[in-house]
């Protein structure tokens, strides 16, 4: 049993089901990537794991405990962190204040965590007093990830972290995500840039119409001719 698992998930935003029996699992110190065509339910699956989408059926377990009916806030308290695709920073607050807000629930000294984030993203350290809304797209994503890391999470979930950033910035961001894995954090990602993401992934799930189509190691999925043809553009 993996650290965080979602099994047999059915559900959506009212109306019809978007998820139809999809299952996801991620372990500590592992990068898991969800890929698939538009509308496959990748983001929905991630939100379901985080409690932002109600499940009609299925179960979510964290460290062996069922958390299916917990609110997102209580999942944060239990060590899950989520970086939404949009609106993932406080644009009118400074970089430092964004990180402080990430640690809002913590009562202990947060300076060490903050220095660790600044170590991971040195650019943020230089701009800690700047308003986050004034930063570039890549730096905003760094703030968003940094904010999520401030909770000292066991699981970090990223919804398309490289959407709309330049290719060079994307590579840089993936390098940082590899570093985060090194710290023993479970990383679950939804990615549009499937090729690059699978290249750093320990495991990958290919989702189609709310169901798992392929599950394998990242390398194997990249090598799989059917996956290449249908989902990676040849």
């Amino acid at each position, binding site marked *: 049993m993996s650290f965080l698992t979602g099994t047999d998930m059915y559900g959506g935003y009212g109306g019809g089901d978007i998820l139809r029996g999809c299952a996801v699992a991620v372990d500590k110190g592992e990068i898991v990537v969800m890929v698939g065509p538009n509308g496959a339910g990748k983001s929905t699956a991630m939100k379901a794991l985080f409690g932002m989408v109600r499940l009609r059926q299925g179960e979510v377990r964290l460290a062996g405990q069922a958390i299916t009916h917990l609110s997102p*806030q209580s999942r944060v308290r239990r060590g899950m962190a989520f970086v939404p695709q949009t609106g993932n920073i406080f644009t009118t607050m400074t970089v430092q204040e964004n990180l402080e807000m990430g640690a809002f629930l913590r009562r202990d000294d947060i300076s060490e965590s903050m220095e660790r984030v600044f170590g991971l993203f040195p650019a943020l350290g230089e701009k800690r007093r700047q308003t986050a809304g004034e930063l570039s797209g890549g730096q905003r994503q760094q703030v968003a990830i940094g904010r999520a890391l401030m909770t000292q999470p066991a699981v970090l979930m990223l919804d398309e972290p490289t959407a709309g950033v330049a290719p060079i910035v994307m590579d840089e961001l993936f390098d940082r995500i590899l570093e985060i894995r090194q710290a023993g954090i479970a990383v679950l990602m939804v990615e549009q840039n499937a090729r690059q993401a699978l290249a750093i992934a320990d495991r990958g799930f290919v989702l189609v119409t709310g169901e798992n189509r392929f599950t394998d190691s990242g390398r194997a999925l990249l090598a799989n001719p059917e996956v290449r043809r249908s989902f990676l553009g040849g």
Partner: protein
Amino acid sequence: MEVDVVNAMVLLANFVVVPALAYGSQLALGALGITLVYGILRFANFSHGDLMAFGTMVVILLTWQLQAWDIGLGFLPTALLALPLGIAATIAVGLAADRAVFRFYRLRRSAPMVLAIASVGVMFVLNGVVRVVIGPDDRSFSDGARYLINAREFKSLTGLAEGLSIRTSQVLTLALAVIAVAVLFWFLRRTRAGKAMRAYSDNEDLALLSGVEPDRVVLLTWAIAASLAAIAGTLYGLDKSFQPFTYFQLLLPMFAAAIVGGIGQPHGAIAGGFLVAFSEIALTYPYKKFLGYLLPDDMRPVGLVQLLSTDYKLSVSFVILVVVLLWRPTGLFRGRIS
């Protein structure tokens, strides 16, 4: 000639600058409450003027009681002693209104317009309560020393032809406003709860994800907005006079101040408050005597040189509001509470 220039400046200070500083502070405090409610609870609160009237009413009733007991503050108005209880009562009313009315629509995530109309209902009720308790007429409650410096003293002190009178209420207004604003900004920038409020105003979903308790933020917002309303209302009442209807009419300049400054922005509300106050007073002041000091005899104006009749001072806030919005739709300072 030089004396004339000094006289002209004293004249301007006496009739424009000092009154506008006091009035601007009152508007700014009111607009701060409006802007906080708008930024965090996300609706235009039409009941804010009547909330001010309510707070002032409580202060007046307490002041009368204290005066009857012969308890006072010497040269300061007794109302200052009554103010803390007035603030407490206003907070209680604000929270009660939220619990009874606004919470329901907030939890359903109703459109801002629905909340605004609900605030009209609250406005009606508060307006009626104030009139039932204290009546619709003018009520005076200021005491203590009326002037810090009066015109005659100033003239004999300086030997100038023009006097400068500074009322206690004006200095008090400015001092209290500075203190209130300083405390508010310190709270918003430095404290955990203040940062939570700013985060909630900036990005509600992300704030919730970060563990901010929405109920606490809402509670704090009403507590602050109501405190500011009680302070602003009392200061306005001390400076001018208390009449429930005028507090309703303050809604327009206060909203103009909040919107012009960029709604949801505390420093914008302050800038907007002073902009509206200075424009209102400067445009309705007759400059005849002022120009008389500065211009040679043969060029002295015959008329009053008043750009706008005092009866139309409300239109100043309206024009500022519309002009700024058409020219810069987000107001002078962009964004949410920061």
